[in-house]
Each structure stands twice: as C-alpha cells, then as structure tokens.
C-alpha cells in the first residue's frame, strides 16, 4: 500500500460540523417520536443555546447529582465523535421517543434506531437511550447479570467513558444513570436515578403472535386474553406458571409490557419505583418507559398469585437473604455455591462486616 494514502476521519467527513447536520433527510420524521412537520429544521425564531449547553441543563434538571463518593471522572475523551457518540439530531429524536414513552407508560414507541459500533442484541437500544439522556454531570453504572465486571458491561462502560468522559461508578447509590442487562440492583433505587434496560424482544406477545401488524392491534384493543391463556396453560400442564424471566407485567393499568429478560424475582422492584425506568430495544427499534411511582403489576390469577423465586440458602460470601443468587459449580462432583448476583450489593455488605459461611453445598 502506498504510504501517502490516508483515510478520512469521521471529522473530515463532516461530523462535528453543525452546519451540515440536519435532523433527518426525510420529512417523514423518525418514527412516532418524531414530529412530521419539524424536519428539515427551519431556523429558530429566537437564538438557541448550542445543544451541548442544553444537554447539561437538561441533565441537571432531570438527574440531580447523587452522592459522588469515590466516583472517578475519566478525561481521555476520544476526539472525532460527538459527546456520548450520537449526534445531537439523533439524540433529540431519541429523547422525543423517550418523552412519548413516559407519557404513555408501557407503550412501545418506534424510533429510528441507529447502527451502533457494537452488535445488535448486545445492548444497542440501551446504549442509545443512555447516550441520549447522559449529561456531563451524570455518574454512570453499567451492569450485566447484576455484575459490573462482566465483559459486555465493561465494554459498554468503557464506551461511554471514552466517548463522553462522564464519571463512572460501580456503586448503585452513587449512580445517576444505571444501564442494565437482565437485573435490577438489590439496593433500592431513589428519585433522580434512571435505570436503562437493554431489551432484546420488546413485544411481550411476540411468541404468541409473530406478526407486528397483529400485536400492534392487540395492544391497541388491550386484548391480552392470549397471554392469560398461555399462563393458564402453564398451570394446567405444570402446576406452575412456567415463565421465570421476562415475566409479563401490566403498567399503569393499561399496557402489558415485557420487563426485559430480568428474572421475575426483580418484577416487584419495578412497581412504584422512585426511579425513572427506560427500556431500549435497538434491533427491534422500540423505546418504552415506566415513569417514577407507577403501578407495575405482574400478571397472575386470584388462585395462583404471582410469586418470586426463593433461594433456600443465603449468599455464601455476604450471608444476604432475599437476594438473587448465582450458582457456581466448584468441581465435577456436584459441589456448588450460591453467591449474590448483584456484585456491588455483595461487596457493600462485606465491607460493612457481613460474612457468609463460605460453604459449598
């Protein structure tokens, strides 16, 4: 290859040049979150603050700082991309979808999901939601399976540390934005915090009805009979409802919603939660939300009330009861050990002097 050949950086191609960036090339807007009349943008009748300033104001209003503790501010912000990777037009589009989702709790809002630099199915929806709401003063925590150190959680946390420079933490109480896959932290969430779920299949009815055109209609008519029949068939066949994760919930008495594949153990935490809960499905191009203090009811029957998983042993490391546990295989003779799935919760308890038996079972 000739030494003189160079490849243009994203910046050279126009990124960062605000004068070239438009909301969308097509006047159809970008999904239901879009306003059809708004694109292409007309010059505003009054001077506007540059988007980056608006970002911080919005950030500070929506998510007041939680305690800073040992949160670390990363400074090695990678040049060439906008704050938190997405351009401001895309963030606005996503924020509109989020606002619509908050206004209609549990309703799946189509949005113009972008192609992210990580694979579909690996958290692109959550990443886009986080990118759209992140402000410079936010403190970000990312978990996968309840743990901060699982590979994909590490990868996503580093992505935001690199592209936004925001502070990151592993402590639930310190975080203002928590992106999660498959768990809700054990430490109760508080007002001002936002929990962002990564969602693979947002449609709770998908495995009962594969067609989008049909499921949209079923939601519109609040026709959820098929879901109840499915749960009833579980009981008649197995004696139990055989759905253990992604257990369907009814939000604010209206929409049936997929809580993402969290174990049903976490469903009660969604109910009347003081934190804002946002759900992003990148591949399926849907965003939905549960505003703070909203009723979230797990579907059940009077004679078969909803029940969560119960563990017969406490965490072997910190002795915690009533938390979700991971099962570790210790040898090939069947020796196992149960430890907290929420690593931050477990570490916090051990730091406070709680000790488990350390015993295998």
């Amino acid at each position, binding site marked *: 290859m000739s030494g003189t*050949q160079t490849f243009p950086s994203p910046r050279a191609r126009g990124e960062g040049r605000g004068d070239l960036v438009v909301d*969308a090339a097509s006047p159809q807007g970008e999904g239901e979150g879009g306003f059809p009349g708004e694109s292409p943008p007309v010059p505003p009748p009054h001077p506007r603050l540059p988007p980056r300033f608006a970002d911080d104001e919005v950030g500070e209003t929506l998510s007041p700082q939680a305690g800073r503790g040992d949160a670390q501010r990363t400074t090695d912000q990678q040049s060439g991309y906008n704050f938190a990777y997405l351009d401001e037009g895309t963030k606005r589009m996503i924020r509109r979808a989020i606002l619509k989702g908050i206004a209609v709790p549990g309703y799946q809002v189509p949005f113009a999901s972008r192609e992210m630099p990580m694979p579909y199915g690996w958290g692109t929806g959550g990443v886009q939601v986080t990118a759209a709401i992140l402000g410079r003063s936010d403190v970000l925590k990312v978990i996968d399976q309840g743990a901060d150190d699982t590979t994909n959680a590490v990868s996503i946390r580093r992505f935001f540390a690199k592209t936004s420079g925001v502070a990151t933490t592993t402590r639930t109480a310190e975080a203002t934005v928590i992106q999660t*896959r*498959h768990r809700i932290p054990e430490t109760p969430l508080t007002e001002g915090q936002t929990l962002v779920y990564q969602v693979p299949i947002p449609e709770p009815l998908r495995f009962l009805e594969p067609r989008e055109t049909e499921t949209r209609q079923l939601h519109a008519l609040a026709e959820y009979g098929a879901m109840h029949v499915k749960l009833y068939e579980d009981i008649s066949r197995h004696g139990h409802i*055989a759905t253990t994760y992604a257990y369907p919930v009814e939000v604010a008495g209206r929409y049936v919603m997929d809580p993402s594949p969290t174990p049903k153990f976490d469903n009660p935490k969604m109910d009347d939660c003081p934190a804002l809960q946002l759900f992003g499905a990148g591949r399926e191009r*849907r965003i939905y939300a549960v505003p703070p203090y909203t009723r979230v009811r797990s579907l059940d029957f009077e004679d078969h009330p909803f029940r969560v998983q119960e563990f017969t042993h406490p965490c072997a490391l910190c002795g915690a009861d009533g938390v979700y546990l*991971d099962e570790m295989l210790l040898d090939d003779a069947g020796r196992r050990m149960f430890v907290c799935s929420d690593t931050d919760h477990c570490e916090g308890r051990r730091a406070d002097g709680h000790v488990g038996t350390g015993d295998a079972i």
Partner: protein
Amino acid sequence: MYVAVKGGEAAIDNAHRLLAEVRRGDPAVPELSVAQIRAQMALLVDRVMTEGSLHDPDLAALALKQARGDVVEAVFLVRAFRTTLPRFGASVPVDTGAMAVERRISATFKDLPGGQVLGPTFDYTHRLIDFALAAEGEVEPAAEAEPRADAALCPRVTDLLARDGLIEASPMDEGAPVGDLTREPVDYPADRALRLQALARGDEGFVLGLAYSTQRGYGRTHPFVGEIRVGEVAVAFVPEELGFAVPLGRVRLTECQMVNQFKGSGATPPQFTRGYGLSFGQSERKAMAMALVDRALRAEELGEPVTSPAQDQEFVLAHCDSLQATGFVEHLKLPHYVDFQAELELVRRLRAEFEQKPEPVEMQEAAE
C-alpha cells in the same frame, strides 16, 4: 473458598491485542495492502459496499482487512461508520439507461439495440483450480475491439417492452420523498421503495436462499432475466442554493430487471410484471436474487395469494439484515446465567414434584 473473579478489563484488552496479532498473521509474509484488496478482491469489496449501504471502495477494503476477511464483520464496520455521517440530501435518481455498459446480457431477446456484451464474467469458465495462479505471473492483456455502431445506445429491455404495453409501466416518479430505512423504523406494510432498500442491504446468502425458494414453488413468479447490466452511471445532486444538478461523480452498479408472467386481472389486461435488483459494483447474484424476491413480495399488490416466506414482507424484511441476524444470534454468547438460574430453579422444582407423584395410572378412555 470461592472468590468472585474480577479482571474483565484486562482480559478484554489482552484479547484485542491477541486479535491484532492473529489478524496480521505470520510477519514473514508481506502485509496485504488496502489497494491490493480493493483491486484484487474487488467482488468482495462490492459486496461489502452493497450490504454496508455505502459507496466507498477504499473504506470497504480497509474494513475487510480489519475484519480478517469476514464479510459480515466488514459490513458491520462500514455500517457503524456510515451511521456517523451527516445526511445533507438525496441525489437525483441515477439513469441506468445511460449507463456506460461493461456487461449487458438479456435472456429474453437474442439480439437487441446495444447488443449482448459478455464483459468480465465467470459464466462459461470451467471451474478448475488454476494452479498457475499460485505462482505470480503477468496476465495476458484483454482483447480489444471496435465498439458496435449502436454501442452508445443501449436502452433497457424493459423500456423496449413497455413501448408496446407488454410490461407494466415503471411507477412514475412523483417527486414524493423516498423513505429511508436507516432513519425511520419500518412500519408494516412497507412500501416497495423501503422493501427494495432492505433487500439491497440484505445478506446475499439469505436473499439468495429466498429467491431460490420461489423457483422451487414457494411463491413461484415465472421469471425471465429481461436484462442484467453492469457499468458506471453518473451521480448528480441538486444543492438547494444552486437549484440545478451538479455532477458528484460516477458509481459502478449492477442492475437486474426480471420479467415475470402475470395473467392480468379484471381491471388490467395480461402483461408482464417487473422484479428489480440493484447493487454496487458487480454483484450479479445479489441483484438477481433481489429482483426475484422483490417480485415475490409484490404478491399482495398483484392480487396473488401470500402463502410462502418469500412473499411475506414481515418475514423477509425482519430477517434479511445480516447485522441484525448475526448480532442476535451471537448475543447468545453473552452471559445468561441469571435467566438460566431462574430456569434451573423451575426445572428442579418440577422434577421434585414429578418424583413425588404416584405411579401414573394407565390412561383411560374418557367417556365425557
């Protein structure tokens, strides 16, 4: 005693360093240059551009180098780059009728204005490994000939058929904005323009398989290759401040127009219908497969029963994208132990209950 393992960050860094080393391979072997990939793996570059939805041969070649030749991974790199580019407008529709034709064949007419031009093709080669290629050597220059008198005039076969009304008219360009699959979520039913976008970006293998299924009876379309043409077309853009078209450059395209049987309906006399395929560079297999599936997806519009996967737009559009497919299939590599734990608990409970049950009684014929 068990101690919770930490160190994901270091493991990831080390895995990536190992990847870089393995990608380079044996340092005693000269490194591939991007220019070499672009020139000598041209069809691969074309495929990456087509499925990556971005015309940039250098970038596609670089992506292939970075991806160690993995097409889907290279498409991923190109798409992730593309998503960061600003959109400042749409080009004037390219005129494939004015294409500088390098290859043009029709399976419906033996001869036609502009002639049959074979161009560079694997067709009719005997697929025998050429061991001489293992040794480096000069290639005999291609033969040259004077162009035919009518070479400059190379009308599309479908235009010739349309003159007599034998084939349905091409839909008029009413100046309505064309949707953009990458900027709006698909709302079913999707119009034909969006379907064609999805097929153009769709995985070649998947679209090929669907196209093949229509030939074996799953949504038969009775196709003929009206024409395949490969060559460069001019791309022009109308900047708003100028108000007239400015040429931007030329891109190489492959266009396939399938001509399909149609018996007509009460409102329309019998005439042929169209299936359309278009791809960057020389990607004939993709363009043909796309044209077959495009026609199959028009079943509803043409009043044909929708019975097969290739005719079902929710099925085709939701599953043809290689990035969506590979992402979701490969995400199964991610940890799922929380959900698996939930399932373990249920299966253990169900098994315990099963053990406690009395011996199953012989099934009796129920009277009621």
